[in-house]
């Protein structure tokens, strides 16, 4: 039996060009299907990982998803600000365990700058409730100190002790706060969340660099040197949003209702996990359509394989007759053909997975800017499921030429009819 399979392999190798084309089609189709699935699940995972320890995200009233995307993922359009008094009032609410202010709007060479409090580093949790850790240095303690996310440091080659200047707005060429440089004091370990791409500074620093600014530009004739800023009240009037962790999970709905009905100003409290799920719900149709399309592409690829094998069969009638004369039964002939198709499918899926890995290596960094971390990892259970279904479909597609070869070998016997 092994020798017969070996013979099938040799025969397939002899037709490697035509089979190769079918193989490439299957590989591309499999890569597409696996990529759709990988991006879907990893996007979900990396988004969910980013909000694992936060019970509520609070900001000015806008869209729930908009607020969450901007506050946690620093992407999408900016929301209105909320008042500092509201932050203080909510931070001292009896149900609240911890509260961290977020102030966004500035950037450093394309990376967002987040003004926050040092509590951020203690309180924020990512992934499976893991705390942030420093790969170098320590949290900021002074106004003009900055803590970098791992990717910021890696991409721009910064180390503790380096000086950086922030720019106003996210544009790479926005006006610079050049007069007030920051010292890098800490670099965070990689988290696979937007933290990696963020420059963290003290909330007071955001106020400080804008002391002599108005309306997005420096005030003419007014320049406050960095050494002088401490003389000013650096408490902000407004912040972008706040993150809240609760003492007891059970209070989340009550506090959410409280904040949504807050008297001081119109606020919105979002349960980030809920908002994400709702986002996935609305995206489900898009995902399913993409998935269905790529499944269809796989089906087309496998149909191509069937067509290739069937078309080749006519030219192989003599080969089949020779094998018959040598003692091969219709069963063996059937098996040779089916194995050939299955083999091409399996190689195609394998190649597709390799293509996906190559794609992740080359294109993965691009997706990171949007908070989606594609990890190079062995296929997960759902992807194995896809692999198995591609192989099963490939087997079904190979049964057709196998069955046809069976018929031919029975009809032709030892002398092929042409």
């Amino acid at each position, binding site marked *: 039996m092994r020798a017969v399979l070996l013979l099938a392999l040799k025969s397939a190798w002899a037709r490697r060009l035509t089979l190769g084309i079918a193989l490439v089609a299957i590989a591309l189709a499999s890569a597409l299907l696996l990529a759709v699935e990988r991006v879907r699940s990893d996007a979900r995972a990396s988004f969910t990982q980013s909000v694992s320890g936060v019970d509520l995200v609070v900001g000015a009233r806008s869209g729930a*998803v908009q607020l969450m995307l901007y506050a946690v993922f620093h*992407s999408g359009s900016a929301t209105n600000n909320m008042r500092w008094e509201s932050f203080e009032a909510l931070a001292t609410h009896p149900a609240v365990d911890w509260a961290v202010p977020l102030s966004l709007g500035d950037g450093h060479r394309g990376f967002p700058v987040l003004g926050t409090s040092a509590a951020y580093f203690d309180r924020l949790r990512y992934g499976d409730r893991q705390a942030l850790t420093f790969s170098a240095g320590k949290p900021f303690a002074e106004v003009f100190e900055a803590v970098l996310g791992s990717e910021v440091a890696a991409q721009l080659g910064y180390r503790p002790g380096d000086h950086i200047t922030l720019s106003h707005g996210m544009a790479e060429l926005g006006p610079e706060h050049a007069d007030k440089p920051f010292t890098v004091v800490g670099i965070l370990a990689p988290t696979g969340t937007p933290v990696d791409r963020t420059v963290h500074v003290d909330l007071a620093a955001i106020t400080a660099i804008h002391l002599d600014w108005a309306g997005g530009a420096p005030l003419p004739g007014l320049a406050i040197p960095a050494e002088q800023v401490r003389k000013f009240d650096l408490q902000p009037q407004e912040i972008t949003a706040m993150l809240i962790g609760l003492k007891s999970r*059970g209070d989340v709905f009550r506090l959410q209702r409280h904040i*949504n009905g807050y008297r001081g100003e119109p606020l919105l409290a979002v349960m980030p*996990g809920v*908002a994400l799920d709702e*986002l996935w719900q*609305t995206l489900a149709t898009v995902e399913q359509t993409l998935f269905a399309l790529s499944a269809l592409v796989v089906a087309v690829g496998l149909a191509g394989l069937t067509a290739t094998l069937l078309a080749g069969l006519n030219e192989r009638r003599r080969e089949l007759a020779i094998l018959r004369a040598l003692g091969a039964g219709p069963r063996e002939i059937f098996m040779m053909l089916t194995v050939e198709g299955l083999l091409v499918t399996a190689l195609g899926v394998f190649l597709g997975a390799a293509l996906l890995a190559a794609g992740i290596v080359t294109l993965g960094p691009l997706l990171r800017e*949007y908070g989606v971390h594609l990890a190079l990892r062995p296929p997960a259970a759902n992807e194995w499921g896809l692999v198995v279904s591609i192989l099963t479909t490939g087997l079904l597609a190979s049964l057709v030429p196998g069955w046809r070869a069976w018929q031919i070998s029975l009809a032709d016997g030892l002398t092929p009819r042409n």
Partner: protein
Amino acid sequence: MNAQVLLAATLICGMPFAHAQHKHVHGEGRLDAVIDEGSISLDVELPLDAVVGFERAPKNDKQKAALAGAEKILNDAATLWQPTPAAGCSVQSVQVGMPKFDGEHADIDANYVFHCADPAELKAIETTLFKHFKRLYRLETQRSGPVGQGAQRLTPKKPVLVW
């Protein structure tokens, strides 16, 4: 690319603020579930119409009977909610607030608290609400639990809250 999809989705659906805002949709109920250290708290809000088929004060004996029947069903927490049996959950308290018929729309608010002996085994909660109230076709659920937060849409075909 993904962020653009996300943004597009945000813009398209708009996601009008605040889930907790009381919007009233016929046939659609809301469920807030907290699963915390061996206790389950379920806050349910059902449009009266989905429960009894009308949403004004009962006009005749038949409607009064329907209302009383609904209240009885809603008080039977052990039948309405079925947490994973292995978790050994038992009803601790039930509060059913029948509508007062003062506003435009009438809602039923109910709260159920369960205590579970073996919270590690708790994996899902099934509801029989849809079997009892045929006009209810959707229960928008928000959950905060051991594996984080989530939203799920329960329907007559999928009446199980899982996490």
